[in-house]
């Protein structure tokens, strides 16, 4: 359509300028993140309703979760949000090597999160903490306890899937940066990937107190 198309390798044919395209990409990501947050909103609503219905039991059930695992994972994720920002920062500063290093470091932290999560679930299983009708913990046999763990598994499970998706996005960004398709002056893909990663982080920051710290 315009000559700019041929001069600017990252510009799709239906945009007039890179600024317009970046604006569109950012806005699209924001709207999508809003939609993702609402996906979790249904679960948060359910959790809140059942917590109101079985307040004291939910508090007791929450105390059987491992705060140590949960807190460790919170630190891991917050750190990973910081490292992904560092990666973007170094990309903007034109320091590709450092940017790549922090990207890979972020992915490694995501792996650490999932590993800790897996150990936590195994630990829960060993105590007989299963969702729904499979719930078999001896110490806490009150109506509503199973419901708490059902939501615990559903919410951390769905969040875990988002962590996996986020790792995929970050791995794809790593590829782009390594090949030089995402570089200083055109950071949009990494910027969007980092935004998605922050969402994954923020959801956990809500999950952590609502699941682990109920009193």
């Amino acid at each position, binding site marked *: 359509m315009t000559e700019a198309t041929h001069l600017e390798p990252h510009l799709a044919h239906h945009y007039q300028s890179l600024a317009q395209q970046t604006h*569109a990409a950012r806005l699209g990501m924001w709207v999508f993140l*809003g*939609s993702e947050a609402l996906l979790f909103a*249904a679960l948060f609503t359910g959790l809140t309703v*059942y917590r109101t219905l079985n307040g004291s039991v939910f508090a007791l059930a929450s105390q059987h979760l491992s705060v140590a695992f949960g807190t460790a994972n919170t630190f891991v994720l917050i750190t990973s949000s910081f490292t992904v920002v560092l990666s973007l920062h170094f990309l903007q500063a034109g320091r590709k090597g450092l940017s790549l290093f922090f990207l890979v470091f972020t992915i490694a932290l995501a792996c650490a999160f999932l590993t800790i999560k897996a150990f936590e679930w195994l630990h829960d299983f060993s105590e007989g903490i299963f969702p*729904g*009708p499979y719930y078999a913990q001896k110490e806490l046999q009150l109506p*509503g306890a*199973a419901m708490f763990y059902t939501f615990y598994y*559903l919410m951390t499970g769905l969040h875990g899937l988002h962590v996996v998706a986020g790792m995929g996005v970050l791995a794809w960004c790593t590829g782009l940066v390594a090949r030089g398709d995402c570089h200083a002056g055109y950071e949009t893909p990494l910027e969007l990937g980092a935004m998605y990663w922050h969402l994954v982080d923020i959801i956990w920051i809500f999950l952590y107190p609502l699941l682990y710290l109920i009193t």
Partner: protein
Amino acid sequence: MRPSSEPNSPVYHQPNYLGHETSVRSWLLTHDHKRIAIMFLGGVLTAFFAGGVFALVLRIKLLVPGKFFISALAYNRLFTLHGVTMVFLFLVPAVPSVFGNFFLPIMIGAQDVAFPRLNLLSFYLYVTGAAIALFGMIWNGADTGWTFYTPYSTTTPTDIVPVLLGVFLVGFSSIVTGVNFIVTVHTLRAPGMTWMRLPLFVWGSYATAVVQVVATPVLGMTVLLVAVEHAFDFGIFDPARGGDPVLFEHLFWFYSHPAVYIMILPAMGVISEVVACFSRKNPFGYEAIAFSSLGIGFVGFLTWGHHLFVSGQSTFDAGVFGVLSMLVAVFSAIKVFNWVGIMYKGSVSFKTPLAYVFGFLFLFVFGGMTGVALATVLLDVPWHDTYFVVAHFHFIMVGASLMGFLAALHYWFPKMFGRMYPERFGIAAFFLVFLGFLVTFIPQFLLGNAGMPRRYYEYPAHFQPLHVVSTVGSWLLGLGFLLILAYLVWSLRWGEIAGPNPWGSEGFEWRTPSPVGPENYDETPVFTHRPHAYDLVEAAEYRRRELGDERD
């Protein structure tokens, strides 16, 4: 890339988006919003005819009060199939994914939507979801009705999981389309296309997109929870395990009431375009029509409780939800008065698209008024879950949304395919559909008022005459749709060549050749006024005629 200057020249505009590439691959992997729209058209029409056949079959059963034709289980599956197919596979995507996709970028002077690849993804999500849902329903069909109410849906022996997963995927298709439209309207408007010059169809689509993005994820999560519960027996909504089935109703209707506006807002946008074009009048109350779309979208999120009047809701809550629901009628009435205002003193030409506008106005007002009645708690209690409700929402969903869809299909057919449909058949089919609709659904108001519950296989013998009338009406409706299908398919090949602007419309999409070129516009258009500015046209014509002025 010039259209032929002869309005009815036999020369088809070349190259156009249909003909410039012809391989199967160029269709299946296309990023062109127009081709994706055409593929969606194929998809939603298939869903529509499947859903229609299911309805016809179950209406045949209802000819007789007792056992007849099909078993009770088959009957339950059929109304579920009909509801799920029509709501999720036809009504929700029909206008946005087909006409929105095709015309929204053209109307704002863009070359494509903001994210063409996501647009294609949206289509494949739709196809996959539709295939899984239809397969699941036919394989070991769900018998829960399209509302999937717990605890029945989580304990039914029929296989409901594929249907729910299908609905989940189709929901994501809807979200992706919504994201795309929001970003397109924000970032891809051509020079001069300010917000206050946006065509009213774009305003309607924009409001719809917001509702799609905000409401659909909640539905997605909710149907997933039902699927998980049905598969693993978790007891999330099962009262026997401490679950709360009313929570399901809240979550479900938090989406499914706004979903009504996903179905109707874009149809309202179509009405605004068509009514201006066929009255040759500028949109009267442009701002009012535009902002009432946003108003409906917003208030629509605060009304879901009117589905829970008999689910143990407190009197106070019921009153609040009732009043908020009636607010929707205020915004709707603003639109209706303005549409009538556009026609007032216009030079109205009664073509098929406008016929559907009249159909829309009549049925929508009727459906809307019964909606206000249903939002009144005292009236809803006896009418709840009767045929009265069924008739009411068919007046809105079929009466209004489908009339909008058909108006769009006839109005934009020449632009999409470059040929005209036969006008006489169009009008004849309109009367068949309109009459068939009234004959089908007016008896259902009477039945419901007399106490006929919805979704029942058998009924008392004294209801039979009204049921027979309703079934005969459904045949008229079916005949009307077949006639439309027949002449539209005929027109694809043998219809008169349309030329760029057969209606003399001042909508911006008519500035492109028919069928539209692959890039929409040869060069980026610049807009200087609102669409449908017939006063400017009249002024220009007057200057030419009276003053010999050739300026445009």
